[in-house]
């Protein structure tokens, strides 16, 4: 049981312009427990996007397959540098070796 680092994303617009200085938030769909650790869904996990639209800094979240109930998802929202919501999806973050590139997610929303 371990949290997983979230990286990448390469957020951009339809012309390929990166979401420079934007941000992305992760909200768990419902409160959950990981072994004996209670995870509060109401608290967002946030990350800033760098000049390439990738997550900057170190961000860890709990993979959904380690949580109980087993049906949780993350609502992931991206914002422009001006705070405009520009991208949103609900996805499962899986467990695995190393970090997880959220650029591989197919938006489902």
């Amino acid at each position: 049981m371990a949290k997983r680092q979230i990286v990448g994303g390469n957020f951009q617009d339809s012309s390929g312009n990166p979401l420079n200085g934007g941000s992305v938030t992760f909200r768990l769909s419902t409160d959950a427990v990981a072994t004996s650790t209670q995870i509060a869904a109401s608290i967002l996990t946030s990350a800033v996007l760098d000049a390439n639209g990738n997550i900057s800094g170190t961000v860890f979240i709990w993979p959904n397959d380690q949580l109980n109930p087993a049906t949780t998802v993350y609502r992931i929202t991206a914002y422009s540098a001006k705070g405009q919501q520009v991208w949103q999806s609900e996805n499962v973050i899986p467990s695995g070796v190393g970090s997880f590139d959220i650029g591989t997610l197919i938006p489902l929303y």
Partner: protein
Amino acid sequence: MSTKVQLIGGSFQDSEGAVLANGYLKMRLSQDCMVNNSQVCSGVEITIQLDSNGNVASTSSTPAASNQFVWGNDQLAPINSFYRVTGYKANGQPAWGPNNQQVIGNGGTFDVGTWVPNSVVNWTPSPQIPFVKVNGVALSSQAILDFENSGSVTWVDAGNGQVQAAAAGGSGMTLVAESHQTRASSGTVTVTPTLGGNFSKGLYQYFISFVLASSGTEVATLEYCLSFQSYGGIVCNQSGHLSPPPGDVALTNLIGGSSFQLNEWVGVEFGGQGGFALEAQPSLKWEFFTDAVNPLSVNMDLWIYRVATLP
């Protein structure tokens, strides 16, 4: 790896032919998408500049401008995305659309002049759920189609989406092949069932099916099927004679036999006339005779089936 597509062309104009000189297009993706492990944000509306001729501005425009690129919808996931496109005059007046349009391509150029307004052509329909009926009546469940074995039909998943049915004999009967022999001979043909040396004793029905084919001129292909019951022995009627005339075939057994004409479809049932002890290796003999003029050769493919259980 996908590559963005350069937009060109369009020649946007009004009904009198006056071009939307130095106007622009606003394009908004229909949904968030992913390409090349990158998230494409539909929330950001992009602007595509038009040149003095109403075409998408590019390095070949006068004056020259930067080439303008967008992601082709066929490169984005999930599928079926499109752009909501609105064309504006230079003074900001909406003039064209909004229309749903798609950009198709991986690299290269895309001429927006090929757009048919509000026509989305690259569309993958969602899976169509069939409506299942049985004998014209809707199946009780449209969510599950389950092939269940019955007393007379057995279903097998043969893989690759194939379902195979095996039908057993009707009325609870099962045909068991007791013997299969092939004989090619001239003149007398003797067939001796050798499966275990015995027919199964008991109240069974036997079906004998054989096909005769001959190169002779007197004998033609004949299919003959007869059945008889074994009450501990082979029982046949005794109306036949052992030495049929030329052109006839005699079926002989331990008691006697029955003759029948060739070139006929003959079905004879041997009723029970009594019985006798079943020999260890009962033999069935077919005798073929020619008229001594025309050559005769017989090929026989003999099957003997036992009905496992009587109805």
